[in-house]
């Protein structure tokens, strides 16, 4: 086989995938032929680094797991990103160019993520990539983005301890998500003792560490009375539930993920722990997870994050119906899904501010970008490429939604390397 044949095959495969991506965006497809470069500045001026930008299109990548164990979590992000992109295209695109999507499957496998990231940057010359979910996948692609100078919009709330010119973190880092919630529970419930639980990997461990430091150093008279970790996928929680019954903490602080969540909340309920009496604060259960847990098993628990589907503001009132119209009435929108939705918009705003698709210019222009149309409300990109955002506390209802019962007055500053919490 010659070099040429391979390249042709690769190109046609790419084209097929682009078409698939387009098929998912009927509105965009309809708009495409009508536009030309008359609407935007000349390609030579907005693209000096050889990205996949033509006179009327710009190519971006979506990189999530649509197979494997992580597909459960990442589907929502893909849907949100596609929704945002189709909306942007309908409204005229970016610098007069329609967005074309190349979607790749990370297959829940970290080298595959790295592999596909490289493909998106090197072969497809994507101007931006929206993707990744787990920290492990982000860690795997980060060197690729730095080496080939790409731009990644990462949607998940995560442990912090990272900052890169080539990544915009649209979810909250740990201190943003944790501190306000702990302050709130201490203030309103008078809670003094905390029991920290987590799945055994970096995000829960780092988050619990921050929580412990905050509880011990910043909340007067409060202490941590227990801390336990369970392997991912663990399904037996009766022993730890008994342990908690013995120590009777004021607050159970739970960062359990995946299938373990379902087991934990079901067993908690079956053990006679009434979440309306026992305060439980979690940062890992979004509306998506409740689908599996069952609303009646978690009703009464408090979750602390930046977005809930039930949020009452004008932006969200438009966003939720639009999402359901595109992806079905039954779909639910969790914190990460909303954060994923922000990615394409933030990128569009940055490109327009920079007047260019060039990665360096976007990286430089990102700090200070404001997005007033975010479903969660106003957000702004910080110098450290994370978002200023509000933190909210929701109380789980039996129907799988949260009642938002508290939100911080101001935007919380992202602080990925928090002094005194490490």
């Amino acid at each position: 086989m010659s070099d040429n044949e391979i390249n042709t095959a690769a190109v046609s495969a790419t084209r097929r995938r682009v078409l698939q991506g387009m098929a998912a965006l009927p509105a965009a497809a309809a708009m495409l032929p009508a536009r030309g470069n008359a609407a935007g500045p000349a390609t030579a001026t907005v693209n000096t680094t050889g990205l996949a930008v033509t006179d009327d299109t710009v190519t971006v990548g979506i990189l999530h797991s649509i197979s494997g164990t992580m597909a459960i979590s990442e589907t929502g992000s893909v849907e949100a990103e596609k929704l945002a992109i189709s909306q942007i295209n309908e409204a005229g695109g970016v610098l007069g160019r329609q967005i074309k999507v190349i979607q790749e499957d990370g297959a829940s496998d970290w080298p595959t993520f790295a592999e596909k990231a490289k493909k998106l940057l090197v072969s497809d010359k994507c101007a931006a990539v929206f993707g990744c979910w787990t920290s492990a996948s982000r860690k795997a692609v980060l060197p690729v983005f730095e080496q080939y100078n790409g731009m990644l919009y990462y949607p998940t709330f995560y442990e912090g301890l990272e900052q890169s010119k080539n990544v915009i973190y649209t979810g909250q880092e740990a201190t943003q998500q944790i501190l306000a919630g702990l302050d709130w529970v201490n203030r309103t419930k008078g809670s003094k003792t905390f029991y920290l639980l987590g799945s055994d990997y970096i995000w829960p461990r780092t988050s619990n560490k921050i929580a412990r430091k905050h509880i011990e150093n910043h909340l007067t008279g409060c202490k941590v009375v227990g801390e336990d970790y369970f392997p991912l996928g663990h399904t037996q929680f009766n022993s730890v539930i008994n342990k908690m019954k013995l120590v009777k903490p004021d607050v159970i602080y739970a960062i359990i993920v995946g299938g373990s969540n379902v087991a934990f909340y079901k067993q908690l309920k079956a053990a006679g722990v009434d979440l309306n009496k026992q305060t439980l604060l979690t940062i890992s259960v979004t509306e998506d997870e409740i689908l599996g847990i069952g609303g009646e098993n978690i009703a009464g628990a408090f979750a602390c994050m930046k977005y809930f589907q039930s949020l009452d503001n004008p932006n969200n009132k438009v966003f939720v119906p639009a999402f359901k119209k595109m992806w079905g009435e039954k779909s639910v929108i969790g914190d990460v899904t909303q954060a994923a939705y922000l990615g394409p918009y933030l990128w569009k705003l940055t490109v327009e501010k920079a007047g260019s698709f060039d990665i360096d210019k976007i990286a430089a222009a990102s700090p200070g970008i404001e997005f007033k149309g975010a479903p969660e409300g106003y957000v702004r990109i910080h110098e450290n490429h994370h978002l200023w955002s509000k933190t909210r506390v929701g109380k789980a209802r039996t129907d799988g939604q949260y009642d938002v019962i508290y939100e911080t007055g101001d935007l919380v500053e992202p602080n990925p390397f928090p002094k005194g919490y490490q």
Partner: protein
Amino acid sequence: MTFLNRKDIAAIAILAVLLLAVLPLCLDPFRLNLVGKYLTYGFVALGLVLCWGDAGILSLGQGIFFGLGGYCMAMYLKLEASSPEATKIQSTPGIPDFMDWNQITSLPLFWRPFHSLAFTIVAVPLVPVLLALIIGLAMFKRRVGGTYFAIITQAVAAILTILIIGQQGYTGGVNGITDLRTLNGWDIRPDHAKIVLYFINGGLLIVCVLLAQFVRRSKLGRILVAMRDKEDRVRFSGYDVANFKIFVFCLAAGLAAIGGAMFTLQVGFMSPSFVGIVPSIEMVIFCAVGGRTSIFGAIYGALTVNWARTTFSEGLPQLWLFAMGSLFILVVVVFPDGLAGIYRRYLDPLVDRMLPPVRRRIPVAAVAETPQVSPTFAE
């Protein structure tokens, strides 16, 4: 090389030309790097041919050794990437970033020797071999074999994964050891470095193939096969069967470890997701698809299955599990000898007919049907 017959030499030559000439000429650096990654599983498959195909010992824990080899290499690379200058923003400069995040303030003792490249090169095969030796001594001396052995190795793989994830301050946890940059000052990330690594990988693989072929063609190789079929007979011919099993298990572990180290170098990180049960079973799949009793089959199997996985996951990710599952069932039920079996049944007789006869053997018919064990009176 008396342990190679004409066909072996031809097969090795074809493999070498394919790996070291045809693929590098046809593929762009990106695809070539992928092939390099697949080939690292070829090392594991090679070990499995000896251990499983020949000796009948099915290890469902090859990921352990692959992972340990990979981790040894990753530890060296990580230390090099964590020079005090590069990590000066940390509260303790000079240690890997994930340790700093986990409040570890000095480099743990077992990390220290990995500052040395020489030590690392020795440790890559040696650490996994030592673990294999311990497992082997405990199991084979007590005559644990077959399914029990498979299940226990699987449990060990599970334990190791939980340990690596749980001790994230020392191991990088579920994220693994990432952001590896240089090997003894040489940047491993650019395309030209990847191409060099690919050739090193391919060359090493050929060397390992020769090694494996040497073992198989020695009397030890025949004893392994004999042991698989008639263990008692071998024992009552005066052999300490356990020692042979331990040897081949350690050898397979060492080969897997080399694969793991090459994987780390080419992919640029190592994580517990290559240690656990699922990757271990997948490695067995590569071997089974290629043919558990054929060295070359196993390597082509590793290449084919991984290539198919990439292709499927680019085009039809939903179908990937269906395809992989069916392929596996098909191979086990219909073609227990995998690709190599198909080759032997349909193509090899043709090759025989085309090759001019060189030496006369007395019972031609019997030998032609089983080239695997054809005797060579070369001396």
